[in-house]
Every structure is written in structure tokens, then in C-alpha cells.
């Protein structure tokens, strides 16, 4: 067990440092003069070469790649994201402000996805092939096919413009989060419904079930002890992947709904070549992924003890 946890942590560490180096290298070698971009973002005017060189030296862009990398990584190890080259302010408070908008939205979307998909899939699989089942599959297919930005605009059109029930733009009240959360959540619900449904159907076909069917084991126990755990493995996998798509969707949705948040934060940082901002978002995203994968790995092992065994 300790060996397992150690291995998983080591893997996490490799992914994190790889991501850090790769992002830094990509940004460092991106076309265009970063010093000029930063200077323009900072002063919002055309500038002389002197000013640009001054910015270059100040931000540390005149150093070698590795010097600059270590200068960034060192403080990062103590969770110090440094200062923004553009605003000069520390990165963390601004990043935290964005997170405080984005993470609740992401959790709301995942929650909506689960609240819709779990009951829908369970109802659908009560009688496979029934009208309800086909309705659920159809709904899920449509949901999967609709892009988030289109759904977002349609929801704005219906609920904000026509019905005027909900606000469309901004993030000043909790009501502002409803439409963006729905936009993301419906997509999550669509793919989860499909995977939970097929997971349950497949789990019901497990070969050992006839051996216990007439032994007094209730349908409920069969569902709980045999069907649900087997169906859970693909669901857990997809749930993790869903989180990845969600981060991608968040960028779009935040822009559509004019919400502050990680997506908006990242787009602005990229446009103004704000290295420390971009890197902070990427490292944070990688950290989220690593933690999610770690948790998923551990859940797998709880569900199926064969997973991760060296002799399996």
C-alpha cells in the first residue's frame, strides 16, 4: 500500500515538473517579442526600444532560459507564484479571485451533471429499449453534439432575453451563475448518462449473476454489490475526463457570459504575454489534474482490488 502510494506520488511529481518545464519552454520560445507585449500591456502605447529593453531587463527576459526557469521555479516550490510582469501585483491574490469564481461554477456543473445523469440512466436501464430508455439515449446524444458556446447563447436568448428570468452577463449575484452552470452541466449530464447507462447494462450481463439469481439475494443487493461497482469503473474514468473538458468549456463559457474567472484570467494573460499569470494557471490546472487522477487511481483500487497488483 505504501509502495503503491509512493509510486502514485512519484508519477504525480513527474507530470507536474514536466508540465512546468514544457509550459515555460513554450512561452519562452513563442513567436514575437514578449518584452514588447508586456510593455504594451503595461503602458498601452507605442514605445521606444529603450523602454522595451528596460522592461526586458526588469522582467528578467535578458537571462538565459535555464536561469529564468530556476528563478521562476524556486519560489514556486514554496507556493510563491511571483509578481505579474504586467500589473506588478503578486499573482496569487488575483489568481485566487479567479478561482473563487471558477471552482464553484465547475462544481455546480458537475453537480448538475450528476443530478440529471444518475437518475436518468437508472430509469433508462430499468427497461432497456423502452421508450424512456430511447428518450434518454436520444437526449444524451443531442446533448453531446451541442457545443457549449451555442447552448450558452441559446440559454441566454431564452431565459435572459425572451423570458427575462435570469441575468445573462456578469457574476455579481449567485443567480448569475445559473445559466453558465446549466450550459456546462447539461454537457456533463449528456456524456455521463451514456456512460452510466452502458456501464449498468454491461454490469448486468456479468457471467456470475445467474449463479446467485435464485439464492434469495435481492435485486437491491445485486445492484449494490455486483452491478454498481462494476458500472462505476468506466463512470469514474469518464468523470475524471469530464473535468478536463470542463476546464476547456469554462474558458468559453466565462467569455460568453462575461464572467471573471480562470478562463478570462488565462485569455487576458496570454494576450498580454503575462508569463507568471499563464504559468500559474497551467501549473494550477496540472495540479488539479494530478490530484484528480490520483484520487481516481485510489478509487479504482478500492472498487477492484485486482487493479494495481503487481502479480495481476
Amino acid at each position, binding site marked *: 500500500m505504501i509502495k503503491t502510494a509512493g509510486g502514485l506520488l512519484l508519477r504525480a511529481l513527474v507530470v507536474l515538473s514536466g508540465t512546468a518545464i514544457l509550459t515555460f519552454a513554450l512561452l519562452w520560445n513563442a513567436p514575437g517579442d514578449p518584452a514588447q507585449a508586456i510593455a504594451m500591456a503595461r503602458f498601452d502605447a507605442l514605445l521606444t526600444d529603450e523602454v522595451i529593453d528596460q522592461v526586458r531587463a526588469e522582467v528578467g527576459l535578458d537571462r538565459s532560459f535555464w536561469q529564468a526557469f530556476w528563478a521562476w521555479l524556486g519560489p514556486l516550490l514554496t507556493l510563491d507564484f511571483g509578481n505579474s510582469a504586467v500589473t506588478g501585483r503578486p499573482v496569487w491574490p488575483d489568481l485566487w479571485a479567479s478561482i473563487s469564481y471558477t471552482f464553484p461554477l465547475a462544481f455546480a456543473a458537475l453537480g448538475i451533471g450528476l443530478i440529471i445523469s444518475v437518475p436518468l440512466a437508472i430509469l433508462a436501464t430499468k427497461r432497456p429499449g423502452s421508450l424512456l430508455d430511447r428518450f434518454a439515449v436520444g437526449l444524451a446524444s443531442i446533448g453531446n453534439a451541442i457545443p457549449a458556446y451555442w447552448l450558452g447563447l441559446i440559454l441566454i436568448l431564452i431565459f435572459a432575453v425572451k423570458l427575462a428570468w435570469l441575468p445573462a452577463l456578469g457574476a455579481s449575484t449567485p443567480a448569475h451563475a445559473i445559466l453558465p452552470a446549466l450550459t456546462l452541466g447539461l454537457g456533463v449530464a449528456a456524456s455521463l448518462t451514456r456512460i452510466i447507462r452502458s456501464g449498468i447494462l454491461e454490469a448486468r450481463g456479468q457471467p456470475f449473476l445467474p449463479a446467485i439469481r*435464485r439464492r*434469495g439475494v435481492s435485486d437491491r443487493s445485486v445492484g449494490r*454489490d455486483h452491478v454498481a461497482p462494476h458500472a462505476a469503473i468506466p463512470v469514474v474514468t469518464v468523470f475524471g475526463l469530464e473535468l478536463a473538458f470542463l476546464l476547456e468549456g469554462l474558458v468559453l463559457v466565462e467569455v460568453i457570459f462575461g464572467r471573471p474567472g480562470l478562463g478570462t484570467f488565462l485569455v487576458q494573460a496570454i494576450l498580454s504575454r503575462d508569463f507568471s499569470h499563464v504559468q500559474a494557471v497551467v501549473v494550477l490546472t496540472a495540479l488539479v489534474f494530478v490530484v484528480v487522477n490520483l484520487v481516481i487511481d485510489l478509487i479504482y483500487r478500492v472498487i477492484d482490488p485486482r487493479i494495481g497488483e503487481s502479480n495481476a
Partner: protein
Amino acid sequence: MLTVSDLVVKRGPRVTLADISFTLPAGKTLAVVGESGAGKSTLIAAILGLLRPSSGEVTWDGAPTRDARPALVMQEPRAAFNPTMSLRRSIMEPVVAQNISLAGGRLERLCAGLELPLDLLDRRPDQVSIGQAQRAGILRALIASPPLVLFDEPLSALDAVTQKHTARLIAELQAEEGFAALIVTHDLGYAVAHGDQIAVLKSGRIEEIADAQDFALNPRSDYCRTLRDAAIALGALEAVA
């Protein structure tokens, strides 16, 4: 007593079982022999009540068989268990579900009878041999003392030595426990050696049903005679008459 009367099972337009009737008294063994596709597995599913017959009836002592909580021993020993659970948990599942309090030492006695070390039960199905998994499957079938046990090709996944061994253990336990056994097999030698009665299933119909010895001596239909002679030629059945 298991009573199957005028059982018909249709799947779509295809008749998989037609006019099946027989009885199996408590404590006795009926061996159902037939080639692949003869309807053996369908018969098991119908007796367990896992599929709805088109017509006819299957009862145990006058009530639906499911009330008797019949047990099933499956063909593929490892696939017969939830792969993520310990054998012990799977074996005890019917006991827990039926809320039975086992007589003291019953598990140990059955384990001894099946030559299964007790600590083996804490392993998962992939951590024991096929033969051990099959004996664990038999243990699960017998643990809650069912009056009727169905065996679906119980030996076919085992090697020759293990087959003989397992067949002997099944017979010994049946003598002790007194359950009625319906054994589906394609091995006529095994059927004749261990069955009180033999039923030959062909294309969903019972071709012949007879006492095992009578059948071995004097099969009535041409098909059954061919079957018997083939088994003798293969050495699966000792030459008789």
C-alpha cells in the same frame, strides 16, 4: 420433487424447448445429455425461472421452483464468481441473503468434504486454480442446503484428473446432503456413472428418458444408440451388454 410438465420455450419464432416433461425426486440425479444447441442451457434457465416459458410449468413440490431457492453450479468456474470479491464473501452471499444461521462447523465440514483449505476462501477467484474455483462454486451452491442443485457442465472446464476427483466429491456430498441434482453434460460416461436417470435432449425435445443402466444397455432410439456407441468407442463409457 422437481416436476417439469409440457414445457415449451420459444425465442422469437424459434422453438428452443418443446414438450419437455419429467420428474426428479428429492435426492436423485437426472443427467441431461445433449449436443451443443440441444437446449440444455435453456432448460436450466427455465428451471431456475430466469426465463418465462411460452407454456408449461416447472415446480418444486407444487410451488414455483424459485421458492425452493435452487442453486446453480456453472461451467466456467472462475467466471462464476464476482472477480473483485473474496471467495468467502461470494460463498456466504446466499447465507447472508436468506438470513440463515449456519449449523456450527457446516462451512468447515463442507470445505473438508470438498478438500478446500479454509484459508483459500480469503482469496479471489483469480488467485486459485480452476479446480479449486469449481469446488468453491459447489460449496457456494450447497452452503444454504438447497433441495435442488443444477449443474451446468460442471466438469467440462477441468482437466481429466480433476474431473474424476470433482465428480466423486459431488457424489459423496449428494449422499450426505440429499439434494436432488440435475446435471447437464455432454459426457455420457459421466452421465451413466452418476445419474439415476438419463434424459437425452435433441433439438429442444427429449429424445429418450430412461434409467441410467437401462439406457446404457438398451437405448431405444437410433440417435441414442449412436450416442452410446460413440461414447463406448471413445472409451468414455464402458462396453456393456
